[in-house]
């Protein structure tokens, strides 16, 4: 779906350098041990982001890149898991370890931590085309040279009436003229 958004965007201002995808439960054996402790939403986003960066086959300085992630239900699974714990043990005994996973933007934060990216980070809800638009706008305005843009969801089956496509897809974009010669 994101691919269509990118196709529809003007290609004058950016180039696609890399693309990564991940599906639920698809954590590569060589993944960092820290990833294994994370919730599935973060794991998928990290796998897809890593693949997007690696598939560019370029050695880029991403320290000031933008991260723009879209999600339709965000941290719903982690939040429901956390609330189930509260139901069982009481809110006064809520877990300090699972609470951070209820924050929708933690996924973008973890991407920034993993690749030491200090640029702008934006998490949009339910809006894939919007994420692309925001990233491309930052590239066009020359606020950043590179942007990781993608979406991630892990909420299918949680609520009968709300379905999502579970998985992650991330693209690495570059502003035209930003690539090393």
């Amino acid at each position, binding site marked *: 779906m994101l691919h269509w958004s990118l196709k529809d965007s003007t290609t004058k201002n950016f180039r696609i350098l890399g693309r990564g995808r991940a599906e639920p439960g698809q954590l590569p054996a060589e993944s960092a041990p820290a990833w294994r402790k994370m919730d599935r939403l973060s794991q998928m986003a990290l796998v897809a982001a890593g693949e997007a960066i690696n598939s560019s086959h370029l050695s880029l300085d991403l320290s000031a890149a933008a991260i723009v992630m879209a999600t339709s239900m965000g941290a719903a699974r982690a939040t429901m898991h956390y609330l189930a714990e509260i139901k069982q043990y009481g*809110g006064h005994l809520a877990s*300090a370890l699972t609470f951070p996973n209820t924050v*929708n*933007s*933690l996924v973008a934060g973890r991407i920034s931590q993993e690749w030491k990216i200090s640029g702008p*980070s934006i*998490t949009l809800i339910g809006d894939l085309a919007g994420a692309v638009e925001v990233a491309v706008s930052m590239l066009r305005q020359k606020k950043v040279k590179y942007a990781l843009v993608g979406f991630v969801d892990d909420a299918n089956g949680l609520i009968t009436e709300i379905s999502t496509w579970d998985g992650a897809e991330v693209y690495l974009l570059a502003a035209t003229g930003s690539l090393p010669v």
Partner: protein
Amino acid sequence: MTRRVVVTSLGVLTSNANNQLEFTRALRDGRPGISRITAFPTDKYRVHIGGEVHNIPATPFEIDRTTHLALLAAEETLGQTGLTEKQLSNCPLFFGTLSGPAISLEEYVLSGRTKNFLPAKLRLATTVKEVAAKYALHGKVRTISNACAASTVAIGLAFDYLHNDEGDIALAGGSDSFNLTTFSGFHALRSLDPVACRPFDKNRQGLVASEGAGFILLEEYNHALRRGAPILGEILGYGLSSDAYHDTSPEPTGKGALMAMRLALASAQISPDQIGYVNAHGTGTLQNDRAEAMAINSLFTKVPVSSTKSQIGHAMGAAGVIEAIATLIALKNGFLPPTINFQEADPDCPLDVIPNQAREQICRYALSNNFGFGGTNASLVLKRFDD
């Protein structure tokens, strides 16, 4: 040609005020909005205080409280714009929230699904859809969920929309309810102060969770002039950065916060010595206040700094817009709001915190900071409208 972006209407709902006029008085008087929590029993918790919005109509069954608060703040904002339905029809909506319909999700999980439960309330984008539908806003809608910087980012994106000549008006804001999810989480992290919200005070113990909502109408300057709209202030620019450090703790030297402030000043094309006031993120946690103080002192020689959260608590995703509104009100009315509950200076936070009493002072430029989990940082540069 650069397009100027001004603010021509606003609406706000906090734990100490139910509209703009009340908020102006409360800010000047340093009126606390923190009281004993009524939303749910807290007898088993170590902390019993929070900032709840009182004296508003009950939340209708069809919507979540976050949406309810947003609709009330939007009503105040849009009710005084003087714009016709036709003029508003293409208005985009940029909305920030931390946890969206948290109370509905709690109801769903903790009480079990009841016969009359509406699953649509659980969607994270439900609030923007309700606000847009009620006011027939048919422009683009965006929900931003950048933790506690969410509505600051929303204002930034709305600023870009006007600055880049995509339209002449944009509505930006945020909302979050007081909920068990967030309160219990910060309680578990031992980040709640059981006494009061005491940013930058030596004896501070953490934040005080609260709720609230706010919206501002951003407008292109000449568009506002042409229709004779009252100009409440100007937005000059914004900056965003990431700490790239930790899930919940800020980078201890304030590096990320400093970068967001620097980028905001660069975007506004002004220098640090022109800033006359900083509305700090100032949560009252040991780590945030120390890191933010370091960042502020790295950038400014001496600047008055205060935390609105000392009065109203931490309204999470709505904090950014509420504090931007506080800053606009302060600039317009020629006073600097105080940091209340301040008793003892912390040597780790050597700042002029405007302790306990508002200061009559006219400033032209101010900075408003918001930071969030995952190391997301946002700063806005605002200007008193004087030309």
